């Protein structure tokens, strides 16, 4: 039987909960696959070997790192689930602005921690990752589609097209044109654009689409009244590593 593992590192467990919310799919899977390791959901767990290991969360301690390296060794496929695992997550949005010491001081003051801590990083900084399913949280339909594909030896296909695609095809009135900051044009779709449909600009929780045009989006944000600094901060919230050190004028051309 195919052995599946689902584990969490530094994150909020939201993605694991979202996986648990795929009730129909899990119902169908039980009996066909073995959930060998899923501590969030079951008491008896076995971390010996896997066909597919889903990993949530970013790597921010030596424990995370060891567990991840171990998991990688024991699994044929490793899939990063959620934005923390894929890009570092919201906890890494200021990685390029402050030193680790400053961060520790701000959070823990003078308390000594008895583990090794680093700036939160995506799984791919530590191990090879076979597939990435970003999202805060990940999208249930994409999880189910990925599992179905991998079980059948098919490559899941996620073109990195912008959120505007799903937004426009849902006939949502464009927020950006109404002066509401929206990251749709530079963000990876797949969520179905639920945020714009409810009138909230896309926050970019799924990271970058292919070759995002940051120059133009920054200039649009400034046209609608955001300062340059706020515009950059807004873009950085979820993009973690993929946008750190963003400089204007550097995002153009080269495949763009």
């Amino acid at each position, binding site marked *: 039987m195919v052995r599946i593992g689902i584990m969490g590192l530094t994150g909020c467990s939201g993605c694991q909960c979202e996986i648990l919310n795929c009730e129909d*799919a899990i119902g169908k899977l039980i009996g066909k696959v073995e959930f060998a390791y899923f501590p969030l959901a079951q008491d008896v767990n076995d971390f010996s070997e896997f066909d597919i290991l889903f990993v949530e969360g970013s790597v921010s301690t030596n424990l995370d790192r060891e567990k991840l390296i171990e998991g990688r060794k024991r699994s044929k496929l490793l899939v990063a689930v959620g934005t923390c695992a894929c890009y570092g997550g919201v906890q890494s949005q200021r990685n390029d602005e402050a030193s680790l010491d400053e961060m520790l001081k701000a959070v823990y003051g003078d308390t000594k921690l008895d583990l090794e801590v680093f700036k939160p990083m995506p799984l791919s900084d530590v191990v090879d990752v076979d597939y990435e399913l970003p999202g805060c949280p990940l999208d249930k339909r994409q999880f189910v589609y990925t*599992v*179905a594909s991998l079980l059948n030896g098919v490559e899941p296909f996620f073109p*990195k*097209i912008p959120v505007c695609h799903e937004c*426009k*095809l849902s006939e949502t009135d464009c927020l950006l044109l109404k002066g509401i900051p929206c990251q749709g*044009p530079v963000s990876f779709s797949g969520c179905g654009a639920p945020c714009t449909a409810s009138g909230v600009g896309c926050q970019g929780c799924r990271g970058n689409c292919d070759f995002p045009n940051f120059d*133009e989006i920054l200039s649009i944000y400034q046209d609608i009244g955001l300062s340059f600094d706020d515009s950059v901060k807004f873009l950085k919230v979820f993009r973690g590593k993929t946008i750190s050190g963003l400089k204007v004028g550097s995002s153009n051309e080269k*495949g763009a």
Partner: protein
Amino acid sequence: MEFHIERAKVLPKSNLWSFLEGLKKISPLIAPVKRGNKTVFSEVNDISDIIINYTRTILPPKKFLVPYRRVRFTYSTDNLSFSSNFKARDQIIFGIHSCDLHGISILDSVYLKENPDPRYLEVRKKTVLIGISCMPDDYCFCLSTGTAFPDGANWDLFLTDIGADYFVSIGSPKGDELIIELKRLFRDIEREDLELYKRSTRKKKEAFKNKKLPDLERISQLIELEYESPVWDEEAKRCLSCGTCTNVCPTCFCYTSIDVPDFEGKTVKRVEFTTSCQYPYYSLVAGGHYFKPTRTARFRHRYYHKFVGYPYQIEKLGCVGCGRCSAECPAKISMVETLIRLRGTDEKEPGKAAEQTSAGRSL
């Protein structure tokens, strides 16, 4: 089907709602309804939701002919038997503007001319198209594309506002049947109605008088001659590659198709979904090569396809001047502006400073 003006009818405006009610009894009725500040085509349950005067819907009525996401078929991996539970239903689409009717006529050419798509054909056969006249806003340029009026007859009925009444042109036997079915609501045309009809045509043309219109004279050549123009780079720099311009276009037809297996791997769904030439992956092939590697190349490609590609493919321009691509572009890139700027680099006299000829076509 020929267009016989003398067979036209008149629908008094006071009968419009009875007409719509009558249509709804015949088939599911699709019409423009309000969504926020915009209008969208949607199936209506209550005819009082229908918006008669609107400028443009976010998406064209195309979505009721070719859905943006569709399952083409499912197949079994055991015995490779294919199945589809697709069934076209009768539907009436009311309130389509002239540009969108022309858009559908372009789709007809694309889907039916060579290798007809049986599914599209079935849907088209079961769909009744009822157009309505409209007045342009600042994004419309249908007068340049020759699509401001419902020539041809790929539609069934067309209502032109002539003041107190609608002048109802009949484009097909299906249109005829509807008129017969709802006969009591119509009256015969009189000489005066014809005068009013002509006047309404004039009125629409006049409404374009102070608008910026692109000059589409020898447009295919222009695009080819100006293939290396710096205008492409300058415009594309602002382009977000967001795909909105093609997703909202009534004539775009590109799609991606993927196979989605179930958990057992026994049945596989072939899913097709709309895509855009503005997305980098669109031109990505095995080995990681991009046929359209730069934003400029992708940006230019859309214009190239609309004004050079379509004429080769179907002998018509691929643009009906509906203005959606410009009205919805989050970067406010305007097709009309781009075309005017290209004309500028093309027709400026050598040696003279680049001056834009944005006067458009005189009426």
